């Protein structure tokens, strides 16, 4: 099985387009000023629907990680699955791209890299800083 690709929805299309543009954007709630991920229809913190797509830095740190050689799709070598806490607040699941997965630690600073995995889809991933 090869890597399953996300199917963008009405809520998430701007997010996936920002990934294709190599310039990550997330929704910012105009009422409570929380950055939101994953893309939603109302702010899950305060309930507002004043959500504005806003560029984010792409920087974060590792909240947790796991290294596996046996995921749901075939990979060349080990796959690092991580929860990355972005500077702006949200925590997103992604992969860490690194030649030395064994050296990664929770708390490490990471920065975004854009992986053009298919003509229509770019996945946001991270590399150690």
């Amino acid at each position, binding site marked *: 099985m090869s890597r399953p690709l996300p199917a963008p929805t009405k809520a998430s299309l701007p997010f996936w387009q920002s990934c294709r543009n190599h310039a990550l954007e997330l929704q910012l709630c105009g009422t409570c000023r929380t950055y939101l991920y994953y893309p939603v229809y109302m702010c899950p913190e305060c309930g507002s629907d004043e959500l504005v797509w806003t560029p984010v830095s792409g920087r974060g740190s590792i909240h947790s990680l796991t290294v*596996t050689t046996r995921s749901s799709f075939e990979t060349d070598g080990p796959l690092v699955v991580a929860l990355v806490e972005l500077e702006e607040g949200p925590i997103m699941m992604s992969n860490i791209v690194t030649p030395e997965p064994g050296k990664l630690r929770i708390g490490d600073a990471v920065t975004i890299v854009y992986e053009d995995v298919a003509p229509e889809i770019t996945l946001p991933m991270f590399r150690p800083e």
Partner: protein
Amino acid sequence: MPPPHRRAVIAGIGEPPVGRLSETNPMEMHVRAARLALDDCGMGKHEIDGLLSSGTFLNDNIRHHMLIAEQLGIYAKSLCDTLRTGGQSYIHGLHLAKWAIESGQCEAVLLVRGDTTLSGMPKGEGVKAYVEYGAHPIEFEVPFGMTVPGVYALVAARHMHEFGTTSEQLAAIAVACRRHASMNPAAFKREPITVADVLASPMVSTPLHRLDCSPICDGGGAIIVTTLERARDLKARPVEILGIGEAQSYYHMGHLARATGARQQDKARFGLTRTVQAIAAEQAFGRAGVTPADIDVAQLYDSFTITVLLQFEDLGFCAKGEGGAFCENGRIELGGELPINTNGGLLSFGSSGGINHIIEGVRQMRGACGERQVPDAQVGLVTNVSAVSSNHSVAILGRH
């Protein structure tokens, strides 16, 4: 409080064999389990007026519960549904059964489970099948390679980072379950293992080794809940349901870790290593009028060793962060302070889902566990956990 004669009790249990059961299928397993439970208590199937099943990997469909009722010849029900909260479904079902009995909606409710995820699926396809079943967020997690072991591995890694929990401490849970399974002729995996064996087993997803993960295994079970008044005339000793609690949080791990949308006062209370089982436990212990110190034996849902370790903390047996130390020095083995999973658990008895934890909990309260019996057990705890340690049901059972 219901009038005493109306109190819901567990009157019957049925447990077919577990293992690699190539000759059977989920529907047949449901029928077998149900018949075993009816025979166990001596109830006729015409008395059953409530039926709850759970989603299966194989042969599931929107009318699952109706099909099982048809096979069993149970025509008219006043509660009939398929519960789809994964491994948490069974104590959740027990809760629904209790409400149905005590409100007068039903006289006797059958909870039933059967699945053949081992023999029914090609080898090595388990992980992919779970993904296809929708067990993980398709858009934001599956593309990055999330799997069930991966979910729990992320939780374990975070727990080790926050509290210094070690692989050896996690392994002690697998060792305890295997020791208990070695005393259980019905268990799937019975050969005793050591901590060193667990650490030497292949790494599935860091930090979880193969022996930290419950094996895929065919299995099932059935439970009959009825009024105390009815149960008194039946064959088996009834078991009291002293209290049940439930709590459910999230599915996307980023949301779970961030406690997205939680009330301000709960933001620091919950996260990846701090589950809402604490809420379910408060409810169960409060309703039962007991504390963790009163628990004689515990069947703790054990999809993975980390699933169990978190529970020692969130159920209140020890402080947050001390779950690792709690597992040491035989405390959780028969003869120790809090014996767990006396049938061997998912980790070694096998099966899938949480019905067998309830069944073993009932046996302990009946005094029917033979070599595995906790002497004079009066109060037992049973838990079911699913999703990403985010769906919880907790039951406290009592000897009648």
